[in-house]
Structures are given as C-alpha cells and as structure tokens.
C-alpha cells in the first residue's frame, strides 16, 4: 500500500512539466531528489538546476498544487544543494524530447578539461537540420541553463542545453 502510494507520487510528478521547457517533466530534468510520505506530510526534496534559476519557485508551486489537488496531505518542499545538479542526470529519452522541441540536448560528461578558456569548440548538432556546422554565439542564452548557437547550414539560431 505504502509502496504503491509512493509510486503514485512519482507518477504524478512525471506529469508536471518544466515551466520553461514544457516537453520534459521535473522528474526527467532531475530536480526531484527524494519523495517521503508520513502520515501528515508529503515531503518532496528538490535541488535547483542553477542557484538563481527563477523557475524554481514555479516548480515548487506546481508540485504543491498538483499533489494537493490529488488529495495528498500537506506537501512540504525541501531544497538541497548537494550533490549539485548536473545535466548528466538527464536520460536519453529526455534528451531526444529536447532535440525534437528544438533545443540541442546537453552532451554527456560534464568535465571540460579547459579552465580559463574552456577546451575549445565541441560539436553541437543543429536540432533542426542535424548539421554539425554550427557556431557558438553566446555562452548565456534565453535561460540560465542554455547557450545560444547558430547553424551555418540552415542559418537558424538555436538553444543548446549546456553541460554543468
């Protein structure tokens, strides 16, 4: 019974979309770290993508509202910072959803060996035409977690979900 209830919470969480990138859920994004059920409370432990990510408040409100609407008792959000969120937690299915949505998914393996200047250009494929002939326009894109790229073949600009 308890296990089923716990699984149900996870199932519900999987239906809550990222407010900025609605094709992936908060679970796929990796911000949900733990779910605990007590008699009085439903405790959801989350971790922010970036320290100042303005979407975190929306995440919290959406989680509380969705679970309470489904009849779960007092939903409490706990925020932890360790281990620090990494794009490596995103699975292949989520990466593919990002690509179809028009965002180049993060590359695997977050440790860039370069320090002061990064380790030079790595190939990011255009999510529109799949060309590898792309260039970085800015490390800082439309949200904290994205960089801005341009495709030199189809000439579209696109977001790249940067590795962290």
């Amino acid at each position: 019974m308890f296990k089923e209830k716990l699984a149900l919470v996870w199932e519900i969480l999987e239906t809550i979309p990222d407010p900025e990138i609605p094709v992936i859920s908060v679970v796929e994004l990796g911000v949900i770290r733990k779910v605990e059920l007590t008699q009085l409370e439903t405790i959801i432990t989350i971790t922010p993508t970036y320290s100042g990510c303005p979407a975190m408040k929306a995440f919290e409100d959406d989680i509380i509202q969705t679970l309470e609407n489904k009849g779960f008792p007092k939903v409490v959000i706990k925020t932890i910072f360790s281990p620090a969120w990494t794009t490596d937690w995103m699975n292949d299915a989520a990466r593919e959803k990002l690509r179809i949505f028009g965002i180049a998914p993060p590359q695997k393996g977050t440790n860039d060996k370069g320090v002061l200047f990064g380790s030079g250009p790595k190939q990011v494929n255009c999510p529109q035409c799949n060309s590898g002939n792309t260039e970085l326009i800015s490390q800082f894109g439309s949200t904290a977690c994205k960089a801005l790229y341009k495709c030199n073949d189809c000439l579209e600009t696109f977001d790249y979900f940067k590795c962290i």
Partner: protein
Amino acid sequence: MDINEALIKYCLRLGDDAMILGHRLSELCSNGPYLEEDIAMTNISLDLFGQTRMMYTTAGEIEGKGRTEDDFAYKRLEPEFQNVLLVEQPNGHFGNTMARQMVFSVFYYHLFTELKGSSNEKLAAFAAKSLKETTYHMRHACEWIVRLGDGTEESHWKVQDALNEIWSYRHELFEKDEVEETLIENGIIPDSASFKPAFDSSLQEVLDRATIVEVTEGWKATGGRRGHHSEHLGHILPIFQSIPRTYPNSKW
C-alpha cells in the same frame, strides 16, 4: 572568536560580495552593449543572487534568531555590509565591467575549488554548486579580456586602462582577519594564501593572451571587510532596498 560567530560573518561576506556584484550586473539589464551580452550579464547576475540567497539563508540558520535572507539583504545599512570594494565599483564601459568580472570570478573559482572540500557541509555544498556557475562566468570574462586586449588599438588601451584601475582592488580578496583565521584554524575554509600563486598565474595567463604587457597599480584597496566602503555602496543600497523600505514587510 567563536566558530559559529565566524561562520555567520563568513557566510554574510560571501553573500554580500555576490549580492552587490549581482546588483551591478543587473544594472546592465536592457543596457548591455548588445542583446547577447545584455542577456549574459543578467544570467550571471541571477546566478550571483542565487548564491547570495544560499549564503544569507545559511547565516540566518546558524544565527538562529529567525533572520531571513530578506532581512540581510534589505534591512542592513552600509557599514553592516562586508563586501570587498571591488564589487561596488561602477560598470563603466564594457572593458571595466569585464576586468572587474575577471578578477572576481578567477578568485572565486580558486576559492570554491578548495572550499568544496570543507568540513562544513553547507559551505561544501554551496562551493560545489557555485563552482560550476563561476567557471562559466570566468571563461566568459577571460575570453572578453583577450578579445578586447588583442583587438583594435582602441579596445586595447581601453581594457589596459580598465585593468590599471581595477588591479588595486584584488588584494582585498586575500585579506584575513579574525573571522577567516578562526575558520582556517578549524579546517573549515582554505587559507587563501595557498591558492594566491594559482590566482596570480591564472590572471597572468589571460594578460599574456590579451597582449597586455604590464598592469600598473598605485595603492591597495582595503576596508570593505570592516564595513568601510567607497561612496558607491551608498548609492547602490537606496536603489536596491527602495521597495522594502517604502512598503515594509509587504508581500507579493
């Protein structure tokens, strides 16, 4: 000094540094040199505010008197802020902004690299998280210094001037008083002297690539950690704190 007292002050110092610089960068929102950099400045600003919130919240928890992040941000006066003078300096032209950003992020990159091994769980988690963001900020600033320094004649002398101006402010980042010494003795934070050579050589590497032969400096900035600020902080706080001071305790 009591360890908890030192911890509270140290967290507030890290928070103050990040908050004041975060505010400075937010001034460039809609005022950036062009759209992509405008967005970059506000992105970095957001990261810094996130870091500020973590440190202020941690300070409040250790203090245990119910003070929140907002109390620290909005209800303190100039002398209570202990940020380094570096972060209060005006944005100037883009070369000034990037020179300030390079010194700040290179220092914090090296500090966080060590601090993530802290015996204090909160500080270790904070440093590990912030290091990822700071690395991006640092690369962005270093690449700009190279581009400007190794750019046109005008961009070269402008960034040279910017570096000459900001150079005196880097010493303060390495100052130690009772707060740092207490925490170093107890193995909670690294001794900044241990990564000073790495900090110097990082800056030198950027200067070399930027074809900057020598940076001149005439004095050493000091005072911020004791609450003695430049005129600029007195202009920042009334803007930063205007809403909570006009409408105390309002919620939205």
